[in-house]
């Protein structure tokens, strides 16, 4: 890490080992998930020997504007035992203690890379901060955490990219935890673009306080197996969450995306749109959930999932669920699954485009509204990455 440490933000002299210890404790309480666990029924992880991946990590590459206005601290295998801030420690330990399954507990028990970012109260950072994790050597496991704290009335944009070397097989577990303070606004993106052999497990979370705004883009393109279970909680009145998910699956790719929009306080709103296209062999499972707690009146929540099956031989499961525990709410969800409209393909062909070109154009138009919701910088990067993805580059597209 090359950037300077700002003023010391360390309040409690705790290191990551406290988090790992809590993860180990939770790990010992749980069994590896099997087909009888509802959330894992469609994703078989019994063949994965998690512990065979050697822990390894490398320093983060950053592109940071307006240095000095925020505090960023990074922790990786080579950075030695450093202390975390009290806020980060309590967040990470509570997530470790509440791990929903053994895979998540395993993640916390092996945390070996990550960062803490604090945007002080009243500070607004216009330019995006980009953090780029390139991972360790083939055959290794990087367990990555992020703690992003936006204090009252602040704003920031944070984009996190996960990659590894083409053709290498790694295990990557990651949990980015956003805390959005009163009246703050955070725009964030997590881009998963690992090698098509790697395995990815995500446990992101966001807690949005009163009148806070959180915009999150979850881009899931790479990895042979990717499971992502983010939880977005509105914890104060008037908190707003806007989520865009964009994914693609081809070849033997398997994706299990299960975002939770959780409303714990009144007058919150959340909106999510997940869009994915599939080629033969691809398998996606979308299990989004809107949960409204008893006291969270006047909640307005929307959840939408759209799948495009480009050819026969792919499978898209869609399970957009609702759990509504009070009556003063407006919650809706929708889901559609279909193929490219043959009339549209024909029309484009009649205008001189080849069948491939026509299909590609229609595929772009499918992703268009999701791409349109992404911040410009992210959208640009995602377009380039999509072009490299088999969904655009393989076969007759």
């Amino acid at each position: 890490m090359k950037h300077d440490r700002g003023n010391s933000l360390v309040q409690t002299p705790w290191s990551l080992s406290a988090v790992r210890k809590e993860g180990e404790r939770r790990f010992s309480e749980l069994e590896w998930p099997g087909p009888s666990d509802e959330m894992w029924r469609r994703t078989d992880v019994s063949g994965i020997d998690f512990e065979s991946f050697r822990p390894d990590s490398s320093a983060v590459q950053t592109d940071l504007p307006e240095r000095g206005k925020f505090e960023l601290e990074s922790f990786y295998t080579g950075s030695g035992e450093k202390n975390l801030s009290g806020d980060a420690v309590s967040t990470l330990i509570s997530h470790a203690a509440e791990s929903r399954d053994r895979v998540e507990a395993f993640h916390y028990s092996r945390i070996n890379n990550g960062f803490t970012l604090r945007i002080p109260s009243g500070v607004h950072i216009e330019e995006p901060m980009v953090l780029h994790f390139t991972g360790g050597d083939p055959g290794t496991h990087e367990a990555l955490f992020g703690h992003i704290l936006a204090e009252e009335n602040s704003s920031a944009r944070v984009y996190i990219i996960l990659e590894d070397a083409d053709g290498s097989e790694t295990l990557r577990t990651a949990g980015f935890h956003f805390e959005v303070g009163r009246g703050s606004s955070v725009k964030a993106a997590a881009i998963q673009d690992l090698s098509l052999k790697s395995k990815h497990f995500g446990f992101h979370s966001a807690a949005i306080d009163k009148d806070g705004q959180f915009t999150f883009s979850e881009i899931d393109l790479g990895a042979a197996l990717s499971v992502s279970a983010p939880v977005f909680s509105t914890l104060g009145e008037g908190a707003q969450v806007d989520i865009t998910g964009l994914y693609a699956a081809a070849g033997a790719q398997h994706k299990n995306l299960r975002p939770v929009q959780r409303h714990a306080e009144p007058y919150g709103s959340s909106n999510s749109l997940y869009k994915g296209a599939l080629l033969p062999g691809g398998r996606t499972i979308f299990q989004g959930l809107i949960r409204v707690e008893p006291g969270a009146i006047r909640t307005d929540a929307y959840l939408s999932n759209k799948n495009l099956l480009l050819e026969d031989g792919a499978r898209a499961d869609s399970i957009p669920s609702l759990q509504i525990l009070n009556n003063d709410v407006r919650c809706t969800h929708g889901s559609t699954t279909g193929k490219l409209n043959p009339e549209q393909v024909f029309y484009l062909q009649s205008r001189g485009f080849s069948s491939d070109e026509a299909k590609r154009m229609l595929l772009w138009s499918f992703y268009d509204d999701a791409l349109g919701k992404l911040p410009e910088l992210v959208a640009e990067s995602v377009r380039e990455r999509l072009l490299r993805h088999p969904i655009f580059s393989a076969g007759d597209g």
Partner: protein
Amino acid sequence: MADTPNVGIEDYRFGFNFPDSSVYTTGKGLSEEVVRQISRQKEEPEWMLNYRLRALEAFRRKAMPNWGADLKAINFDEIVYYARPTDKQSRSWEELPESIRETYDRIGIPEAERKFLAGVGAQYDSEVVYHNLKKELEAKGVIFSDPESAVREHPEIVRKYFGTVVPYGDNKFAALNSAVWSGGSFIYVPKGVTVDIPLQAYFRINLENFGQFERTLIIADEGSFVHYIEGCTAPVYTTDSLHSAVVEIIALPGARVRYSTIQNWSTDVYNLVTKRAVAHENATVEWVDGNIGSKRTMKYPSVYLMGEGAHGEVLSIAFAGNGQEQDTGGKMVHMASNTTSTITSKSISKASGIASYRGLLKVAPGLNNVKSRVVCDALLLNDESATNTYPYMEIESDDVSIEHEARVSRIGEDQLFYLQSRGFDEDEASGLIVNGFLDPLVKQLPMEYAVELNRLIELEMEGSVG
């Protein structure tokens, strides 16, 4: 529905029962001997006994569902699995024992009879005691009987279809039913025959701690049509009873079967039912499923669309009152090209009631032109009411058009205000809004049932807003 005086809202409308006059019961608990006794009582052929015994094995092997409603309070050892109320099958109303007749009078069966509804196969405890099949149906070759008679008289049809739609090992409760089934209906409609009046049967539990395990098998031969109506009411008991039915429908090419249920078990009954239909080429199966009573219901009527041109429909209405959990929905499994299906679910949760929609939409690989639409609307009446939606969609073909929508809302203040400004009080106004909410489904029911459902909802709605 006759007027029943002196019944409070929280009281069950049909909360009365008569002394148990069953002639024979197997006693509490389940064992191989109990299954053999049931089979012996029914003078069954060997193959049915063997089927029951295999099912018992499956029941012991199968785990309780680890999802859905809370079933922890079911104690399988406390349940009576078989009781026989009268010794011979009655053919006319007058021949029925007095106490049974009086119970039926209160539900209104003679009224239904007067209304020229078709054969009434009324079930008192687990035996069909009253069975009156209209002559013209017999003349058309329609068989409408209890399944025990069918096993004896039409083994060639029963053996061919029994357990083919819901195999005994399908789930724990289907296995239980397959082992101890008793009563129900058997319907065979010959080729090209249209049964223009709905066939119906009333079911009634009338023995404390007694589980009712009826078994219904409907076969609609090529190009035929039948509408079957199942309705149930049960007396209130202090301990929980279990109702675990299996319904199998086979709609052969070009046939259409409609199955309507209004389930109104008293609020201490566990209602765990497996209902499944197979629709062959160009066949249509429609489930109209209303769930108002019971403590816990888990029921997902399903249609397996096996032939091209098949169409499936589920219309589901659930009302979850205080302490009730309605875990209902529908399943559509598309196994052939050019098939269509719709599931429409409307649920209402009142007080601490929980209404859950749980459904499956599955499209097998390599199919063309499959269309399906699933719509779920939930209405929450009180701030402690809850609703869940779990629509499973598993799509393995690309040439499909799948749509799903769900909405959760409460009674709109502007709607209430408008009706109140027109002189309705709050209860009446919310009752009207709820009836309007259910209207698209209620319209699908035969008139007597629509009237009955509207009355039941009105009754449930009294005092619900405040």
